[in-house]
């Protein structure tokens, strides 16, 4: 049994992960890092969602969000797989791991896949 304060802690952790991931998604130009940031945000949302399912200590956790989280993880996995495959295919052709408009001149280490 988790105390309500623990679910609050999980919820705050989830919110912190969303914030961290959002920062990473916005500041990074390399596509792989953006996909990683996407996964961090996703984990944060799942954690927040899971923490929110524990509202009534007497009734225990609501199982519906858990089912939705599992579905969400499958969706995130498929999205990540497709994104990585596209990034690899693109990097082979373009010799760059960033989109053309993001590939800043001079930032060599940022340009490589």
């Amino acid at each position, binding site marked *: 049994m988790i105390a309500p304060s623990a679910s609050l802690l999980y919820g705050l952790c989830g919110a912190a992960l969303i914030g961290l991931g959002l920062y990473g998604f916005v500041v990074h130009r390399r596509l792989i890092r953006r996909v990683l940031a996407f996964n961090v945000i996703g984990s944060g949302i799942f954690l927040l*969602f899971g923490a929110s*399912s524990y509202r009534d200590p007497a009734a225990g956790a609501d199982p519906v*969000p858990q089912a939705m989280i599992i579905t969400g993880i499958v969706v995130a996995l498929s*999205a990540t797989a497709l*994104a990585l495959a596209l990034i690899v295919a693109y990097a082979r052709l373009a010799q760059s791991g960033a*989109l053309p408009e993001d590939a800043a001149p001079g930032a060599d280490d940022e340009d490589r896949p």
Partner: protein
Amino acid sequence: MTSSALPPALALALILTAPLFGALAAMVTGRRGPAIALATVIATVAGILTLLVIIAGDGAFTLAIGGWEAPLGIQLRADGLAAGFIATTALVMGAILAIAGKPFGSGAQERRSAYTFWPLALLLWGALNAIFLSGDLFNLYVGLELLTLVAVALVGIEGKRETLAAALRYMMFALMGSLLYLLGAALLYAAHGTLDIALLATRVGNAPGDIVAAAAITAGLAAKTALFPFHAWLPPAHSGAPAPASAMLSGLVPKASFYILLRFWFEAAPDIAGTSVLMLLGGLGAFAMIYGSLLALHQDRLKLIIAYSTVAQLGYLFFVFPLAGGESAAQPWAAGAWSGAVFHALSHAMAKASMFLCAGLIIEAIGHDRLPGMKGIVRALPMTVFAFALAAITLMGLPPSGGFTAKYLMMTASFAAGQPFWALMLILAGLLAAAYLYRPLALAFALPDEDAPAPKAVSRARQAAPLVLALAAILLGILSAGPFAFIQIGRPGAAVEGLE
């Protein structure tokens, strides 16, 4: 509320599963894509015709899958709006699949895209049908993700450097959009314990997180609908894909996220729509309209003109929010504005798909889509240019097209609501559309250059596909009374009959 009657359940099952089974079969059998697509079209259309008859006769219905009622179970819901979108999608998909037989068929040279196009196209269709029939925000999320992943794959189907970049750019916007939508859904569930749209309608409005959830969902869906300022991904993605894929991406895919927005703001959460939020959505739509039209004027490639036109046309779908949402929802003009937006979404789906298919045929004939090369193309492709002109009439909103009915309904609502700004924008949109579509049409009818290479011949049968779509968009205007009454079936809130 029927739940166990056989024909409705069977019709929904057919509509939902036939494209998915078709996609699987097309993937397994590899080279038999066109035949499987034909079988899928027949099965799905049979289901859709049954559904249309049921809804027209008995009204809207919901179906609790496996007998599990909401909030625990997931409900499918079929009303006039859903059936209207599903029927339009079937028409557009039918035309696209018919025309795609040549570039992606067994006669095509050995290319990877000949194998991947058919499963992706059918999966896209299955995802669209799932979205149109879902009555649950989480189910909508899964459908939306399936749709997005398939759409991204279709953008990059040719594996060229530019199209892969366009696909990745699209994917970055779409990933962020889905996360925001999921966050909003999670917040709504945490506050209300359900994601069923009908149940949410009775509960949303009093929790502190509701407005945050609504904002997250709206921003996520706006990114997927390419609403200004999230439109940057759309033109390169839609113009880079092969023409049949572009037709699906531009005509159908953004309509799905717009459809969810409609469902969300008008059915799940009508009470939290403040005036400022609705004005913001409408204002962004107006920006999209002006920006997309101006950029369409500057393009030198036919497919880019059509793609920027999509940015503009999607923009004024969003005028529905200030005109029919919030305080306006109870007013007599709301039904007109709402119906106008739906008419616009449906006629744009047909006209835009038709235009991209025309562009594809022109590219087949002259090998590229740069505007100067199109001079005199009307001699080689008379049916295609005719179809393009008819589709242009719908996009400009000239009578008697479906686009005209849409604009007429929205403009009437705009004057009735005392917000003539939107009507002004609609007139401006029509003028700008006329301007950017005039250039390709004028060139098509011009005298060809003496030294221009002769265009390759394209069979009449394949030229007929875009013509059918363009004619359907016109017919939607001529015979607008039937569809108008049909999409009202099962619409919550004020019924039209009660207001007249």
